[in-house]
């Protein structure tokens, strides 16, 4: 068993505290916004100058001037605001964004994050990834636990160029929730049907398994019996 992509996003959504200011990267992180419980107010930030974004715009209701950083048409929630790029990145770089939820290619045991240079890419692009990785109060990484060739992505040391050193604080994958601590990686939760040993087998860096490590509490519709998601 493992989590679906939505399952990973759901698990992150459960942990975001009420009142948080959050920036969502592309990929799995984008799915988080629609999975926030109704009891919480979370304020979503977009690099291109929006705070308080709502869901994606319904077809036919797009506004040409209202897109997110991923160039998708979005909506606003009450209490939203618009601003320019310098202000937007002041929010990021100045440590005002509580959580940046980012995809990753590799994460190291010390929190090093690699997510901007893809092997084999033709044109490099960094966008706001470094600003977010360096600037947010906490960086949450969401990704599949292993590559589509089954190789671990949580490593002793990143092999790809870093986005930022020592920035990741929490790692959410289809197999586990892992905290990055000064003493190394700590396995907080494992997916239903797995156990710490199996998670470690798919993880290059050593995992500490504390006594309160437990199985994730995730609804069945966010689980899959197939291989971990690719």
């Amino acid at each position: 068993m493992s989590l679906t992509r939505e399952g990973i996003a759901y698990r992150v959504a459960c942990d975001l505290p009420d009142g948080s200011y959050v920036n969502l990267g592309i990929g799995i992180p984008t799915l988080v916004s629609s999975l926030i419980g109704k009891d919480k107010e979370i304020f979503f930030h977009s690099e291109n100058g929006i705070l308080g974004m709502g869901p994606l715009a319904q077809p036919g209701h797009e506004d040409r001037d209202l897109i997110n950083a991923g160039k998708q048409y979005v909506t606003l929630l009450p209490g939203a605001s618009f601003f320019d790029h310098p202000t937007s990145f002041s929010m990021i770089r100045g440590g005002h964004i509580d959580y940046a939820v980012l995809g990753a290619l590799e994460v190291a045991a010390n929190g090093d994050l690699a997510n901007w240079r893809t092997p084999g890419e033709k044109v490099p692009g960094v966008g706001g990834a470094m600003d977010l990785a360096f600037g947010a109060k906490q960086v949450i990484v969401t990704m599949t636990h292993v590559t589509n060739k089954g190789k671990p992505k949580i490593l002793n040391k990143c092999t790809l160029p870093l986005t930022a050193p020592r920035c990741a604080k929490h790692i959410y994958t289809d197999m586990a929730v892992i905290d990055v601590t000064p003493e190394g990686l700590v396995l907080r939760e494992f997916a239903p049907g797995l156990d710490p040993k199996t998670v470690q087998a798919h993880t290059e860096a050593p995992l500490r398994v504390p006594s309160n490590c437990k199985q994730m509490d995730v609804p069945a519709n966010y689980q899959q019996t197939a291989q971990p998601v690719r």
Partner: protein
Amino acid sequence: MVDKTLGSCEEAVAGVFDGATILLGGFGDPGLPGQILEALRRQGAKNLTVVHNGSGGGTHALGGLIHDGKVRKLIASFPSNPGNQSFQEKYLKGEIELELVPQGTLAERIRAAGAGLGGFFTPTGAGTDLAAGKESRVLDGREMVFEKALHADFAFVRAYRGDRLGNLNYRMAMRNFNVPMCTAAKHVVAEIDELVPVGGIDPEDVHTPGIFVDHVIEVERHPEYLIITTEGR
């Protein structure tokens, strides 16, 4: 009487010279001066350095300018945007130079130029490949990289409303790079949806005061959505 209005996009780009540095506004479609870009393609200036978040999509607007071989160098944060065939082709052939800058650093370098600052120290990028060869020092307990102000000859942006004094108002996500870009170039022109009488923009709603703007031109938005709106920043 001060009158900063222009009659055509041709006038807006008439002064662009070979080798000029151009700040090109917009993030995605909002704020992108599509009509001025098309006029710039027709105008023919070459060896341009263009500063923009991405590298344009398809073979129109910025993509077209690059496709036509008019751009010598691109300073951008996300040239790997979807639809960037024109840039990719030139880049892989070594026919266009790329200076890759983190998005926040790019915005701040432009702002610094407009604010008369020489440069600043930012934590973004410290210790990564993008800081290679750059001066760094520890400030406020963090390693920071020195980044220089980014000045330009021209800035072209799109705004929502404008008046003959050059006051601009943006709508929703149009402000993006346009606010700082209007401050950082010797010659600044804004395409606008609507020319309003002086006083037609409330003083509280002027996002770019006229002091920063040389010309405005009321022109319909480029009919095509110039940026492919699909995920990927």
